[in-house]
C-alpha cells in the first residue's frame, strides 16, 4: 500500500504525534475560552421564516476581504438563509488579460469560519481583571451607553488625542472594518492618527527616497515579457501578493523566463515557481545584493547610459551638490572608502550563500535582460529593512532594468497607471493632526507626552496626551500581532494607563480577551460592502449581504451608526440615513465610476447582473517609469535630484550614518548570529505568512488548520543537535518570552534558522508560556531607524524539546 509508508523514517512521526497530541490535549485542557456558553456550543444561524424557500440561490461576491493580498471571486450557494457551498470564479476565457480570480484555501474554507461555534453573539462586559477573559452578556443599549460614557469621559478629561483606533485589517469592505469608527470619531473631534503599517513599513518609507513614489511596479501582465525573475524573499503562492501573481509567474516561465527564489525557506513559491532555490541567512540580503553589485560593476555589466542619464550618486561624477566628497554607491561597493570591497567572498561569510552562486546570479541578472528582481516584504520587516529595499532598487538601477517591459524597479511595487484605493469609505478629516508611526502605539500609551519628531511623530511637534482609550475594530493588533506580547499584556493590564478598551470583532480573539467591552460584529457575508484589488488588480467587487447577521451581531458600520445617535451626530454620520447598501452604491457610483473606472457598470446594474465583480482587462500593461527613462529631463522623478537616488542627500542630512547611511549598505542586525547574543540564543527565527490563515484570521478554522497546523519548522541538523524528533513539542524562547508548538523537521529550511508562522493565537499557560505558538512572544518592540517600522523577523532564539 502506498501510504503505509515503508518510505518513512523508522519512527513514524505520525504515530509519535498522535501520542504526543493526546498528552498535549490533557495539558491544554483548560481552554481560555472555557465552556462558557456565551461563546461555545452549536452555532445555530438565524433563519427568518421568509428565507425558508427551499430554493438554492447562487450569489457571486468578493471573497471576504481580510488582508491576504488577494481579492478573489466567490460563488456562494445559499439555501434557507444558510451558506451551503462556496465555489469560485468560473468565468469563461481565463485569458491572462482578465484571468479567473480563483480563491485559495482561505476563501474555500470560509464556511468553517462563518459557522464557527465560537462566533461572538452578544455584547460582552468584562467581569474579572483585564486580560483574564471573564465576561458577561449585556444588551446593546448597555453597550452603547458604556461606549458613550467612556468616549465622552476621555474627551472631557484628556481630549480627543487620547483616543486611538488601532491599525487593523481584519475586515476590508468599507462598511466593515475600522473606517466607520474613524468617521464617527472624526465627527466627535477626532482621534490620534497613525501612518505606516505592519506589512511594509520600511519599503513604504524607503522606496520614495529612491524613486519619489511607491508606484514602482509594472502591471503584472507584463511579467511574461521578462527573461529572468528573481523572487527575493517573495512567496506569492502562499501569501498571495495579488490574486494570480503566482499564476503570472507560471506564465512567464512558460514564456521562457528563468526563475530563482532567494529565501531562507524553500517556500511554496520556491517549489512551484522557481528553477533554483538559493537559501540565504535572514537579514543579510543587502550583503548579497552589494556583492552582486560588485560583480556587475567590476565585470563591466552595468548599463552605463542608464546610470548616466537617470541615476544620482552612483559614483563621484554624479554626487549631489554639497556632497561632492562623500562616499558614493560605487565607493561603498568597491570599498574605496571603508577598505572593504563587497566581494562575493565577503558576502559568502555573511549570507552563507557560496560566492560562486552570488557571482552567477549577478551575471545572469545583469545579462539576461529584461530581468525582474522582485522583493518580498518579509525581508523589510527587519532591523534594517530600509537598507534591503534600497539595495535591491540599486541593482535594478545599475543594470537599467527600469522603465522597460519585462523589467522591474523593485521597491514597494504598487502598480503604475493606477494604484488601488484600498478603502474609500469617507472617514472625513481628523481634527487631531498628530500621527504616530503605527508600530509605536504602546510607546504612546506609556510615554506619549514625551514623544516628538525623534519618535517619528508627524502633524505635530509632540503628542499632547498618552493613549487613554482604545477602540479596536477588526484588529488583533492589541496582543496577537504586535511585538513582545508579554510587554504589551503588562501595559494593557494596567488600567491606570489605558482606561478603557473596546474590541469589535467576530471572535473572542486574544485582543478581545483584553477588552473591557466586546462588541460582536457580523462577517462580510452578512452586510453590504465593496472591495477593490489589493496592491494590484483592476477589479472592483460588490459584496452583497447574502445571509442575515446571526444573533445580535451587527456590521461595523451599523454599530457606529447606532452609537452616533447617542452622540447626536446620526444625521451627519449616516449622511442623511445611508445604510450599508446605500454606501456601497455611493462608493461605486460616486467614487469608482467617477474616478478610476468610469466605464464600470452602475451599482444597480452590477447588483442586478449578479456578476460580483467588475474587471478592467489589462491588454497593454503599463510600464512604470517608461516616460522617465525615455526623457528624464521632461519627466523627472519626485526626488530632490529628479533622478533615481542611489545616494540620498535627505538621508545624509539626518547624520546617522551607522543606521541610516546615505547609500544602501549592509548593516549587521541588532540581534544576529554574529553578535554575542548568539551565544545564548543561537538560532534565527522568522515568521512567514502561512497558507491556512490571513495573519491571525482563520486560525480557528478547522479545515485550514487541518491542512496546515501551527508548527515550528526546523532543519534536521539543528534538531539532531537538540535531540528533537519530528513531531515533538518544542519550547522556543528568548529573554522576552517563550512558546510551545509541535516541531516539523524539514529539509526545506536552512540550518540555523527556524520558522514559526506568524498569526497563531496567543494562549498562555499558567507558567506564562504561550501554547498557541505565537511568534510575538519572542519579537521586539524596538523600531527601525528610518521608518520607525516593525522588525518582527529579527530575533534570536533557543529551542529545546518540551517535556511537560
Amino acid at each position: 500500500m502506498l501510504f503505509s509508508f515503508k518510505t518513512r523514517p523508522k519512527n513514524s512521526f505520525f504515530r509519535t504525534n498522535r501520542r504526543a497530541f493526546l498528552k498535549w490535549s490533557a495539558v491544554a485542557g483548560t481552554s481560555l475560552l472555557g465552556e462558557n456558553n456565551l461563546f461555545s456550543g452549536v452555532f445555530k444561524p438565524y433563519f427568518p421564516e421568509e428565507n425558508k424557500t427551499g430554493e438554492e440561490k447562487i450569489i457571486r461576491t468578493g471573497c471576504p476581504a481580510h488582508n491576504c493580498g488577494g481579492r478573489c471571486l466567490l460563488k456562494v450557494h445559499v439555501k434557507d438563509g444558510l451558506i451551503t457551498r462556496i465555489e469560485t470564479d468560473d468565468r469563461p476565457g481565463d485569458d491572462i488579460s482578465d484571468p479567473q480570480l480563483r480563491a485559495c484555501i482561505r476563501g474555500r474554507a470560509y464556511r468553517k469560519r462563518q459557522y464557527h461555534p465560537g462566533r461572538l453573539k452578544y455584547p460582552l462586559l468584562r467581569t474579572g481583571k483585564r486580560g483574564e477573559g471573564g465576561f458577561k452578556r449585556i444588551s446593546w443599549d448597555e453597550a452603547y451607553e458604556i461606549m458613550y460614557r467612556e468616549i465622552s469621559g476621555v474627551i472631557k478629561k484628556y481630549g480627543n488625542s487620547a483616543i486611538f483606533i488601532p491599525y487593523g485589517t481584519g475586515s476590508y469592505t468599507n462598511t466593515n472594518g475600522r473606517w466607520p469608527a474613524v468617521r464617527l470619531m472624526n465627527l466627535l473631534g477626532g482621534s490620534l492618527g497613525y501612518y505606516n503599517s505592519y506589512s511594509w513599513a520600511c519599503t513604504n518609507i524607503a522606496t520614495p527616497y529612491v524613486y519619489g513614489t511607491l508606484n514602482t511596479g509594472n502591471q503584472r501582465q507584463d511579467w511574461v515579457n521578462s527573461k529572468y525573475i528573481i523572487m527575493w524573499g517573495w512567496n506569492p503562492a502562499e501569501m498571495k501578493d495579488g490574486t494570480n501573481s503566482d499564476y503570472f509567474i507560471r506564465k512567464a516561465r512558460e514564456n521562457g523566463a528563468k526563475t530563482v527564489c532567494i529565501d531562507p525557506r524553500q517556500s511554496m513559491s520556491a517549489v512551484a515557481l522557481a528553477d533554483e532555490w538559493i537559501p540565504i541567512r535572514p537579514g543579510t540580503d543587502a550583503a548579497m545584493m552589494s556583492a552582486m553589485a560588485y560583480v556587475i560593476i567590476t565585470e563591466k555589466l552595468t548599463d552605463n547610459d542608464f546610470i548616466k542619464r537617470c541615476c544620482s550618486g552612483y559614483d563621484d561624477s554624479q554626487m549631489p551638490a554639497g556632497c561632492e566628497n562623500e562616499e558614493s554607491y560605487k565607493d561603498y561597493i568597491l570599498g574605496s572608502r571603508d577598505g572593504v570591497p563587497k566581494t562575493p567572498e565577503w558576502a559568502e561569510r555573511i549570507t552563507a550563500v557560496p560566492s560562486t552562486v552570488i557571482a552567477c546570479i549577478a551575471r545572469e541578472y545583469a545579462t539576461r535582460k529584461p530581468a525582474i528582481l522582485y522583493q518580498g516584504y518579509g525581508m523589510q520587516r527587519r532591523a534594517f529593512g530600509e537598507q534591503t529595499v534600497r539595495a535591491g532598487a540599486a541593482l535594478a538601477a545599475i543594470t537599467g532594468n527600469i522603465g522597460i517591459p519585462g523589467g522591474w524597479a523593485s521597491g514597494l511595487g504598487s502598480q503604475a497607471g493606477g494604484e488601488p484605493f484600498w478603502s474609500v469609505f469617507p472617514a472625513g478629516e481628523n481634527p487631531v493632526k498628530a500621527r504616530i508611526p503605527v508600530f509605536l502605539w504602546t510607546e504612546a500609551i506609556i510615554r506619549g507626552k514625551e514623544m516628538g519628531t525623534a519618535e517619528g511623530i508627524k502633524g505635530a511637534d509632540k503628542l499632547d496626551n498618552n493613549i487613554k482609550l482604545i477602540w479596536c475594530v477588526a484588529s488583533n493588533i492589541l496582543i496577537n500581532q504586535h511585538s513582545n506580547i508579554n510587554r504589551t499584556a503588562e501595559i494593557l493590564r494596567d488600567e491606570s494607563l489605558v482606561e478603557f478598551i473596546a474590541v469589535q470583532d467576530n471572535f473572542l480573539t486574544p485582543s478581545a480577551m483584553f477588552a473591557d467591552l466586546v462588541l460582536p460584529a457580523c462577517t462580510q457575508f452578512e452586510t453590504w460592502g465593496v472591495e477593490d484589488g489589493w496592491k494590484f488588480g483592476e477589479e472592483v467587487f460588490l459584496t452583497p449581504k447574502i445571509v442575515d447577521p446571526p444573533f445580535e451581531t451587527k456590521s461595523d458600520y451599523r454599530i457606529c451608526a447606532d452609537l452616533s445617535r447617542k452622540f447626536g451626530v446620526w444625521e451627519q454620520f449616516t449622511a442623511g440615513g445611508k445604510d450599508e447598501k446605500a454606501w456601497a452604491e455611493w462608493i461605486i457610483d460616486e467614487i469608482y465610476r467617477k474616478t478610476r473606472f468610469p466605464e464600470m457598470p452602475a451599482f444597480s446594474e452590477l447588483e442586478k447582473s449578479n456578476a460580483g465583480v467588475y474587471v478592467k482587462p489589462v491588454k497593454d500593461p503599463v510600464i512604470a517609469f517608461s516616460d522617465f527613462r525615455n526623457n528624464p529631463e521632461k519627466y523627472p522623478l519626485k526626488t530632490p535630484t529628479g533622478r533615481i537616488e542611489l545616494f540620498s542627500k535627505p538621508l545624509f542630512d539626518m547624520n546617522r550614518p551607522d543606521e541610516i547611511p546615505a547609500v544602501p549598505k549592509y548593516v549587521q542586525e541588532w540581534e544576529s548570529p554574529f553578535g554575542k547574543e548568539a551565544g545564548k540564543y543561537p538560532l534565527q527565527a522568522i515568521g512567514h505568512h502561512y497558507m491556512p490563515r490571513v495573519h491571525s484570521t482563520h486560525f480557528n478554522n478547522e479545515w485550514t488548520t487541518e491542512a496546515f497546523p501551527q508548527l515550528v519548522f526546523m532543519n534536521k541538523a539543528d534538531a539532531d543537535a537538540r535531540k528533537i524528533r519530528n513531531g515533538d513539542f518544542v519550547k522556543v524562547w528568548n529573554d522576552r518570552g517563550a512558546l510551545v508548538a509541535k516541531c516539523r523537521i524539514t529539509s526545506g529550511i536552512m540550518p540555523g534558522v527556524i520558522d514559526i508562522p506568524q498569526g497563531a493565537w496567543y494562549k498562555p499557560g499558567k507558567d506564562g508560556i504561550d501554547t498557541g505558538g505565537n511568534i510575538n512572544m519572542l519579537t521586539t518592540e524596538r523600531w527601525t531607524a528610518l521608518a520607525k517600522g516593525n522588525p518582527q523577523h529579527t530575533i534570536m532564539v533557543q529551542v529545546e524539546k518540551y517535556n511537560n
Partner: protein
Amino acid sequence: MPEYAFFINSSVCSGCKTCQIACKDKNELSKGINWRRVYEIEGGNWKEENGVFTSLPFSYFISLSCQNCANPECVKACPTTAMHVNANGIVVIDHELCIGCKYCAWACPYGAPRYDPLKKVMTKCNLCEDYITKGLKPSCVASCPMRALDFGTYNEITAKYGSGENVFPLPDPGTCEPRIVIKPHKDYLKPCKEHAYVTENEYN
C-alpha cells in the same frame, strides 16, 4: 462507458491544498476525511563547508484523490459489492450495502477510500459525478489557483498531456491501471526511499 481521468501537473503545484478544501466544502467532509489529499515529498541532505551550504534538498507535491482505475482493487476487495463501477464508469460506493469493513481502503494502493467514523461507512471521491455529467469540471479541478489540475476522458487527457510519469511515491501502476496522468516536478528523480519524507495531513 467513458473512462474518466485526472491530470496532475506536479511541476507547478504549490501544495496550497485548495483542491482538498474545495472537495471538503462540496462534499461536506468533516475534519479527518479527505477525498483529495496533497502529499508533500521532501528530503535531501545539507552540506556545510566553512559556513556555506553547497548541497540542496528537494521538494514537490502530488495531489491525489481516486484514480478511477480500469481494474480497481477496491471493487475486487469489497465483500458486499458495495464498491462498484456505475453506469457512468465511476467507481462508487453503495452505502446501503457498505458495512464499513475497510477492505477497500486496504486494497487501494492510493488510499482513496476513506472511513467515516460517524456514518460507519466508507466514503470516496466520486469525480463530482453531478458536475461532470453536466459538462462541468470536478470541484477540485475548477479550484486550482495554479491551474495545475485537469479532467476528462482518459483518451482526452493522454492526447493533451501524454501518459506522464509514475512519480515517487506512487506504486507500480501495472496492477490496477489507474487513469491518472502526472507531469512530474523537476525534483521528482531526486528522492530515494530512505531519505524522503512523505506527509499528508497526519502531521496534524
